[in-house]
């Protein structure tokens, strides 16, 4: 009797040991793949590129009179100029003025050679998206920072992260891989546009959705 009881005990301890291993492997695998999915993969998904010149927004903002619109201006037909062209910089930067090596690089490589700076645009949207700066800045009187963040106060340009699959900038999807956002400028996806459009009831005239018609933001 005693021997058989010992055997069953042995069996039980063996079984619990096996169960322990299964749990261990399950959680080990679970956490390994969680880390791969949430930390390693997002890192691999984006290729990192530096801007050709490390532009100092804060420094320039102090010197200009008209804020952001001094360089990022509206054209006569209402369209928005976006990133400045060389012609706008050349008035001041015909020759090196300061001691910043980035400025020297800019004058030598671009101004002297009369070549446009290939700026990487953080907020480039897909081809099917229509966005009018005039409607938002002029009509709705929105601040630039609502969508672009406090970029005007930055001293360095951040690294441009390009999605290897879609080719779009990370600023469109947002930094947070779970899709959480704290600030209005954290993301630039369709939901973020429509969130504000619904709240401000911008042309809620669609038959299909009873919200904004598709052609407000698409082309």
């Amino acid at each position, binding site marked *: 009797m005693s021997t058989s009881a010992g055997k069953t005990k042995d069996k039980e301890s063996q079984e619990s040991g096996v169960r322990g291993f299964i749990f261990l492997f399950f959680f080990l695998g679970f956490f390994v793949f969680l880390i791969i999915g949430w930390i390693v993969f997002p890192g691999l998904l984006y290729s990192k590129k530096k801007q050709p010149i490390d532009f100092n927004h804060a420094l320039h903002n102090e010197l200009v009179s008209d804020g952001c619109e001094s360089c990022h201006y*509206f054209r006569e*037909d*209402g*369209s928005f100029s976006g990133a400045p062209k060389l012609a706008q910089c050349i008035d001041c930067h015909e020759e090196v003025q300061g001691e910043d090596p980035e400025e020297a690089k800019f004058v030598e490589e671009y101004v002297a050679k009369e070549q446009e700076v290939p700026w990487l645009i953080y907020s480039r949207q*897909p*081809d*099917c998206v*229509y966005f*009018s700066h*005039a*409607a938002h800045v*002029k*009509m709705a009187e929105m601040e630039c920072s609502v969508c672009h963040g406090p970029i005007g106060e930055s001293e360095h340009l951040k690294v441009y992260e390009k999605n290897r699959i879609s080719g779009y900038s990370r600023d469109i999807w947002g930094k947070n891989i779970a899709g959480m956002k704290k600030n209005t400028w954290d993301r630039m996806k369709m939901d973020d546009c429509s969130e504000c459009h619904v709240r401000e009831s911008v*042309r809620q*005239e*669609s*038959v*299909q*959705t*009873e919200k904004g*018609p*598709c*052609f407000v933001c*698409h*082309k």
Partner: protein
Amino acid sequence: MKEEHKHKKTRRYGMVIDLDKCTGCGACMVACMAENNVPFREDETDKLLSLTWLRIYRLTNGKPFPETDICYLPRPCMHCEGHHGHSPCVSVCPATVTDYDWETGIVSQIYTRCFGCRYCMAACPYHARYFNWWDPVWPEGMKQYLNPNVSVRMRGVVEKCSFCFPRYQVASEKAHAEGRRELEEEEYQTACTQACPAGAITFGDLNNPKHAVYKLKKSPNAFRLLEKLGTNPKVYYISSREWVRRAGDNYLEHEFKEQKV
């Protein structure tokens, strides 16, 4: 919602095409393809496979020589309003690709949402919708000529005339920069309207008494295609010839009533 729209001032962009002026030259078709980045193929002999947002049809009265008469009929998308904005294609789309906008009265098509079921093509009684069987292939150097305001389509999606909606966006942007919300008649015109050498096409807001189309659509010679279906299209045709007006629908002998001038 429906009640609300009745009280709101809405625009209904539409077209009046004078078939007596149309010579069938095809300038509108060319202008449309250039404006809207419509792809074409080397071999365009099979018209079932080609894309033509605006297409000219040739009508004949079917009579022998002395009475023979022909009429050319340009056919864009009719931008049907249907009843309460339920145009045939909008009602059937399972993916909310196509939509009716109360503010402009334009039936939109969002190519990136479309998955190519072509239900809308079956629903459209005017054959105004086209399917991209291939990715567009542009002849060398032609990519530089594409209109940047119009997104190009990919294989597997349906496309159609948008009444040159990107032109409305561009005109609105200019108006917004000047602090206006209303557009003038000449600020938003379609490419086909401007290209027509005979001035047969008139475009504007059908609800606005100041626009030319408002008056033209009330002409006793005005008719719409397949009026009986109740699609409530926003493209009107004008012809002084009775057989042309009769050709606008499949009328039975006793059905077609001549309007008194």
